[in-house]
């Protein structure tokens, strides 16, 4: 069975430095890369049909580092009798190009944020290209709906916190991935949990993992991300227990249990507003009155909230705040 895996690596120098100097279980970029390379080799060893591509988000730019479908320049040196040439080819291509690109970063690029979403988009484009090739090479050449690849997957290894301005491109990538039937796995290596990656994994049926033991990265990688989605029915992999779906109100950025949603642009507010601040839609007075009436007049203490984090407001079939 052929698998397709695109690994997206976050190479934010700044955040790697923070991870390397963390007081609790530091993990440096070189240590990470060695374990990643071992993981990539393990994946390639699974089947000679397995397709693999590696993408990296450098400060200011995103690039493809390696693709098993492209012919690689022959490695000049073979290091030692223990080396297996195909692995060495892969390892060398990944590590050398990282060294090369880190060196060639210009001063202005060095400070720029890492466009993780750019690398993700490139990975999806790559999978799309493979899908098209796959279709032309099979009998489906004239088919209307392209047949999806057997098990396309993207694994994102992130070290930076969410870049909030990339929320919309991330969501768009998730939708594209859903259309291509691509599973997105994600691993947050350090820092706070990534809300975007949690949602990306959840919405594409992938697995999101926060690296709890940074001193056992390879253990995490092999247990969680080595089994392809098709075998996860038999080999269960760890994933997040809960995804926080609650939204923040647009007005105060508070996380709200009950939000009031603009019927035109879906902006979320923590209280009924006469005019939507996002799209300027005016709401009828009657609606406001009804919505206001649905809120407790005084709030001596907050009403209890369900264990699932979503409160069930009431059983009314209408006028229920969303």
């Amino acid at each position, binding site marked *: 069975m052929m698998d397709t895996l695109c690994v997206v690596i976050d190479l934010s120098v700044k955040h790697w*430095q923070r991870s390397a100097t963390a007081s609790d279980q530091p993990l440096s*970029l070189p240590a990470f*890369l060695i374990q990643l390379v071992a993981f990539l080799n393990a994946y390639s060893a699974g089947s000679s049909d397995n397709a693999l591509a590696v993408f990296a988000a450098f400060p200011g730019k995103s690039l493809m580092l390696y693709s098993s479908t492209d012919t690689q320049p022959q490695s000049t040196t073979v290091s030692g009798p223990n080396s297996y040439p195909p692995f060495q080819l892969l390892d060398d291509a990944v590590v050398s190009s990282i060294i090369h690109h880190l060196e060639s970063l210009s001063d202005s690029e060095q400070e720029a944020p890492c466009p993780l979403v750019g690398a993700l988009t490139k990975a999806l484009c790559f999978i799309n290209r493979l899908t098209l090739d796959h279709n032309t090479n099979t009998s489906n050449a004239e088919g209307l709906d392209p047949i999806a690849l057997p098990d396309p997957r993207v694994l994102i290894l992130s070290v930076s916190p969410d870049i909030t301005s990339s929320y919309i491109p991330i969501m768009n990538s998730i939708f594209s991935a859903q259309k291509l039937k691509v599973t997105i796995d994600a691993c947050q290596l350090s820092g*706070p949990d990534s809300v975007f990656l949690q949602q990306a994994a959840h919405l594409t049926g992938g697995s999101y993992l926060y690296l709890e033991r940074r001193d056992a990265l390879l253990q995490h990688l092999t247990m969680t991300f080595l089994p392809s989605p098709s075998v996860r029915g038999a080999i269960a992999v760890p994933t997040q227990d809960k995804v926080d779906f609650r939204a923040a109100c647009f007005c105060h950025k508070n996380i709200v249990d009950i939000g009031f949603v603009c019927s035109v642009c879906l902006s979320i507010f923590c209280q009924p507003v006469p005019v939507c601040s*996002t799209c300027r839609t005016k709401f009828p007075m009657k609606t406001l009155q009804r919505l206001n009436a649905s809120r407790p007049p005084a709030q001596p203490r907050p*009403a209890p909230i369900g264990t699932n984090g979503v409160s069930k407001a*009431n059983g009314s079939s209408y006028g229920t705040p969303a």
Partner: protein
Amino acid sequence: MPTSVCTAKASYKKIPGVLELNDSNLQWTQDGRKAPSVRVPLTDAASLFCSKEGATQVRLKLGLFSDDNGHNFTFISPQAVAYSEREKFKKELTTIISRNRTAAENAAKPPVTALNASNPPTPKAATTVSPSRASSSRAASVSSDTGATPIIPGNDPASDFRLRKTVLLNNSELAALHRELVIGGQITESEFWEGREHLLYAQVASEQQHKGKPGQLVDPRPEAVEGGEVKIRITPQLVHDIFDEYPVVAKAYSDNVPQKLSEEDFWRRYFQSKLFNAHRASIRSSATQHVMKEDPIFDKYLEKDDDELEPRRQRDIDIDLLLDLAATREDHEETGNEQDITMQAGKQKGALPLIRKFNEHSERLLNSALGEGPSHKRRRIDESDYETIDLDDLHDPEASIGIALEMQDRQRYFEGRMTNASTDASQETLDIKEIIQNTNAELQQWASSLAQLKIERKPGDAALLSMTQNVAARLDVKSKRNDIPDGLFRQMRTCQTAANEFLRQFWTATYPPITEGPSLTTPAQRAAKASKMIGYLSKTSEKVAAIVQTAQQQGADPARVDVAMKPVLDAVERALVFHRNKKTSRS
């Protein structure tokens, strides 16, 4: 000066005066004054209510299109005179009102809607409805084009009862809830239906829709096969359908029955004939096929299979050139048009007669629904081409500009969430260049580092353990069976649906009413209802506790009942807290 139709002594708001009906207005003038203080244009008269025969006061209430409350008049002559006076007014006004209502119905507005069932009009006025409360009523819109008298839910107790019964019969869940709550005496019938009027409207609407001709092609099927004998039950309906679908059979029937063939013989031979075989609605091989015989009578009526390139029955109407599929000939080759080769008429010769039969059948069906349309006039084909291909739908509608989504201050919103992360980043300054140099120096040694890579036992075991626990926890949930006994499960469901209904009643009574115009219940009534529901709701936790206890007795896991009932209890709690806060904030 308008001509007076009738007058009578009548009081209005307990002030004596004279009521007068003339050919344009109904007016009332206080005794001793010259100008009338009430004047109602007759076109505004919408409904009429009268006090009962034998009541102490002889009253008349006129409802208006513009004002539901209308005007109340009391006839103050001695009772016998008052009666005859009122009868006169009533007779005149009834005529005027029915004229007004016809006019209102003809106007395209949705004319009528419900009076609430809990608030029935006086018996005498049972046929009057007040159109000013018109919200959109689907029932009326259907009836207005059928011309039938609309049935308005809430207006006539008898038809209301029937409608509700039909709705409940069609919706077993609702029926169960109704049984539990209304028949169980917890809430009243009208409370139950409040907020569910749309179900009754939908029922009325579906009842008033015309049923069209069934679209199935007549296809008599053998009922039983006994020793090679085929039995087809011939009903008058089937005969009618066959004659309708295949006029040639009707012709054969009138030619041969009863002179040459008896009725029975006719049908027996027809179903064994080649003619019947040609009339079958599919090419499936059926038991009838092998009994197909030569038949000198029926074979005369046999037509050649309709499988030539051109259908036998040509459509006599002139086909619009723009819709004519046969017209996809090569033209405008210079712009790259090619002949359409995807559609090849008659490629499957065997299917042609069937396809054409279906087409004819569909056409007949359409015509029976639409009525035979006006014969199509020969379309002028020399019309300007531009005019013909200028499609309305492709024009940009100027009127709708829409609302452009211009999100204000987008950056601020997105950054708002991540303030924590960005603040600590700004605090430290890093020498990126130096970090890159160090990293690269270390990376140069990657090959030897890779050779030395090994998983440390302790952290590896810890990671393995925590990930296994993660998987095991989910597996545990998955492997659990639903082992709640049926009876207990039913109790849980009943408890939940009842609580939901009480919640619905509570919140509808609590929120301002949705309906425009005068509300159907007074604030006091609504408050009373809300309190009543709170009374029921406050017992929910007791009920759940009882179920948990039952679970314990029956050996089911009480904790699972707790978990299952938690959302309901939370919702109930929310309502209780809401009610409590509202009360304290008022006092």
